[in-house]
């Protein structure tokens, strides 16, 4: 009881509720035109259910008490039933309201907003269909019990049910709308106000004309009613339904409407009136619910589409889509910002658009590869992945990693190509720098070890040389003395010979150190060796933008060779060739050709560089044309080829450049 007391509603609300209830009773009474035919529409049921739906269950006793007061007051004013009968009928009404509110609250999520079709249908069925059964049963039984209005139970029940039901259909929505929008937070735009006003006028005119008998058919009100339901949803439906009920009441009471007639047909007319109101209400409410649901779905869709678009547009990567034929469809904002224009705006006819876009943004050197690879993907449906340079808005070419994949429909047919481009300039640059550092380091360590080596050689040779020079001076003095000392001169000369031999021995020891070993030679398919060398140099070639063209005669016989050494020769010659083309414009093509010539395999490596100034000196040790070279590479190459029993020399390329040629003998008797 304490809890119930603490849930007491505000007296003002309770007062308003009572007042509205009494008014509803009055409205019902005024529509019961012909005495003895009972109540045609019972608005308090709608008010009651709507109130209880929104109120907390603990406050229900208060509302029930208020309703009781109001109905008994109405009874005193209009119905004049005996008090016990009136009280019993009120119990039926209260039961109806509580059952309806309880069922609706059970079915719908709280707070009840009636936003989906399911909720509206449930509320209609439960509130307007099932709940009135309670009041109809109790009320009809009371009427029959007290013998009032000469009604039997069976005759009174349907009228009672449909009256309450119509009351719920018309008033409950209005009440819900009024309660929920009490504070008026929803603002209508000016255009909507105009529409609402026009609609209101049309509605009033049609209603007045149709219900006052000028138009033959009351249901002609349906179009404006549904219009209100579609455009203004629940609020529109509730307000227009109330207006419709009021207008109908006015014209029925004044006798102008189709629903007013002589006493014999009155009962049937009344049923028609109730049906008219019920059908109108049902239609409007369902349409309002559908409209509401549709509107919400559209909003949700728009919202999700917007967030998806925002996601795509703000991802820190360049996103694009093309049609299955490669025609550009979409480029994300990031993409457009990167290239500095909107590729979709690149207007040209049909298929050439893709070509135009690619031409505008891909580095000319990469264009061919991109073209080929993308065409291949389009033709086969295979995913596309490539690193290439792409022009930025400021004209700078940046390294870009592109990946694209086909989007397919349920049948597996390609619907669209989606791709991303990622700016990897910094990584590529870092890698290049790392590689450069490694090369520099390698070069430095090579130079350092050479310096060490030469210092040690110098020391080894210098000691005997110093002894030789000193001994020679001594010898000279013994011979040129006033009395030449031949014996000692002889001794010093012997020492000179001894020391010179020891210096020569040092030299030959060093040569032995660098001598090639012959043990590791195997008969090897020569094409494989070239292919491996090509692989080794592929990346460097790409970096120097040199195209390596390999042609190897098929059926080359195996050659007995030291694979590592010959690869060293090939790598050296290929690198020389690429370096020779560093500073030339135009095509940088390096050709590697291998073919059989007699009993040898002849390999040519040609470049289009400046050529060689002194071809006879270039194989000498420490002769170099490079700024940082040591001049050892070609000397070592020649010694390797020599040790294989082959020859290495240079020729002039046509029209310019240099060709290095080496031969390796085919050893038919080599053991495999």
């Amino acid at each position: 009881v304490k809890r119930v007391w603490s849930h007491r509603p505000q007296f003002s609300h309770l007062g308003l509720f009572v007042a509205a209830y009494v008014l509803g009773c009055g409205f019902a009474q005024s529509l019961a035109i012909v005495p003895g035919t009972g109540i045609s529409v019972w608005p308090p049921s709608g008010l009651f259910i709507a109130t209880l739906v929104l109120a907390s269950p603990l406050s229900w006793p208060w509302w029930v008490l208020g309703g009781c007061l109001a109905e008994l007051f109405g009874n005193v004013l209009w119905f004049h039933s005996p008090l016990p009968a009136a009280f019993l009928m009120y119990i039926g009404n209260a039961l109806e309201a509580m059952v309806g509110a309880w069922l609706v609250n059970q079915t719908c999520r709280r707070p009840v907003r009636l936003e989906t079709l399911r909720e509206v249908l449930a509320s209609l069925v439960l509130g307007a269909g099932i709940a009135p059964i309670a009041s109809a049963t109790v009320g009809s039984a009371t009427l029959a019990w007290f013998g009032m209005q000469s009604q039997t139970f069976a005759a009174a029940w349907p009228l009672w049910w449909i009256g309450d039901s119509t009351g719920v259909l018309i008033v409950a929505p209005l009440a819900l709308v009024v309660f929920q929008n009490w504070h008026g937070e929803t603002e209508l735009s000016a255009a909507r106000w105009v529409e609402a006003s026009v609609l209101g006028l049309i509605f009033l005119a049609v209603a007045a004309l149709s219900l006052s008998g000028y138009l033959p058919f009351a249901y002609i009100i349906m179009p404006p009613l549904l219009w209100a339901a579609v455009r203004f949803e629940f609020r529109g439906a509730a307000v227009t339904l109330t207006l419709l009920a009021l207008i109908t009441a006015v014209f029925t009471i004044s006798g102008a409407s189709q629903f007013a007639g002589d006493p014999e047909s009155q009962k049937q007319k009344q049923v028609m009136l109730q049906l008219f109101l019920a059908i109108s209400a049902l239609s409007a409410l369902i349409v309002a619910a559908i409209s509401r649901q549709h509107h919400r779905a559209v909003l949700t869709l728009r919202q999700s589409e917007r967030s998806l678009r925002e996601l795509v547009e703000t991802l820190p990567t360049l996103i694009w889509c093309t049609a299955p034929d490669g025609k550009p469809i979409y480029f994300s904002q990031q993409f457009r910002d990167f290239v500095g224009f909107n590729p979709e705006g690149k207007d040209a006819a049909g298929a050439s658009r893709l070509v135009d876009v690619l031409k505008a943004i891909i580095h000319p050197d990469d264009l061919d590869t991109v073209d080929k690879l993308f065409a291949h993907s389009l033709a086969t449906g295979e995913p596309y992945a490539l690193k290439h340079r792409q022009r930025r808005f400021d004209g700078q070419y940046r390294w870009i990693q592109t990946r694209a994949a086909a989007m397919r429909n349920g049948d597996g047919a390609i619907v669209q190509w989606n791709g991303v481009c990622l700016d990897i300039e910094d990584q590529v640059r870092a890698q290049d720098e790392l590689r450069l550092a490694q090369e520099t380091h390698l070069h430095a360590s090579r130079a350092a070890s050479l310096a060490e080596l030469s210092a040690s050689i110098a020391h080894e040779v210098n000691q005997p040389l110093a002894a030789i020079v000193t001994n020679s001076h001594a010898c000279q003095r013994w011979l040129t003395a006033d009395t030449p000392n031949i014996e000692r001169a002889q001794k010093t000369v012997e020492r000179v010979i001894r020391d010179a031999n020891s210096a020569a021995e040092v030299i030959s020891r060093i040569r032995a150190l660098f001598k090639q070993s012959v043990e590791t030679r195997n008969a090897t398919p020569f094409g494989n060796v070239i292919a491996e060398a090509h692989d080794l140099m592929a990346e460097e070639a790409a970096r120097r933008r040199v195209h390596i063209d390999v042609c190897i005669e098929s059926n080359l016989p195996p050659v007995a060779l030291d694979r590592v050494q010959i690869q060293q020769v090939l790598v050296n010659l290929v690198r020389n060739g690429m370096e020779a083309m560093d500073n030339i414009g135009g095509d940088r093509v390096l050709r590697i050709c291998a073919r059989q010539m007699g009993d040898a395999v002849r390999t040519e490596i040609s470049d289009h560089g400046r050529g060689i100034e002194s071809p006879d000196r270039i194989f000498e040790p420490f002769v170099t044309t490079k700024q940082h070279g040591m001049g050892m590479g070609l000397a070592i190459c020649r010694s390797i080829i020599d040790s294989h029993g082959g020859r290495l020399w240079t020729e002039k390329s046509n029209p310019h450049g240099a060709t290095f040629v080496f031969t390796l003998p085919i050893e038919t008797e080599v053991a495999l």
Partner: protein
Amino acid sequence: MTAGDHVIFIVDDDERVREALGELLASHDMRTIAFASAGDYVSADKPDVPACLVLDVELPDINGLDLQKQIREGNHPPIVFITGHGDIPSSVQAIKHGAVDFLTKPFSDADLMSAIRAAIAQDREIRSERAELGVLRQRYLDLTPREREVLPLVVSGLLNKQAAAELGISEVTLQIHRRNVMQKMAAASLADLVRFAEKLQIPVTHSRRAGNT
């Protein structure tokens, strides 16, 4: 200059170089003693005659430049460096620390001989100075304690009277001591005595003017 009156020390780890140097210097009528390492040189008994040290920079035990630093304090002969690969910093360091020359192998006869001759001349000079100083020291040691007290006062320029007052003896006694000092130190004049005192590093403790005040 004869073979007996000076000697050349050779320190080089390479036997061929030691041999060749010995031969060349022999042809110049010079006596040589060769060592294979710095340690051998330091520990050997060496004749006390004018000498020169021909030192290789690269030695098996310690670097020739380090040896130069180690023996700087003692009485060692001037050094002529020889090296297989001389770099500028080493040569600068060697010369700064008093080396006569820094020769890169192979070197010419003329360069080596002029360096060695210069070194020996330098050593002869040092030796004669050192010998003179030894004689002076001996004479100084022969003085009586009283005479050793008189010497600084005299070379400081004090009058006999002042010096006598300083020592608390009569002027006549002081004059006797002074005559003995001059005689024992073999000084022909007061100027000679002053020069000897300077070489012996006898401090000038008084001045005539300071004594007056």
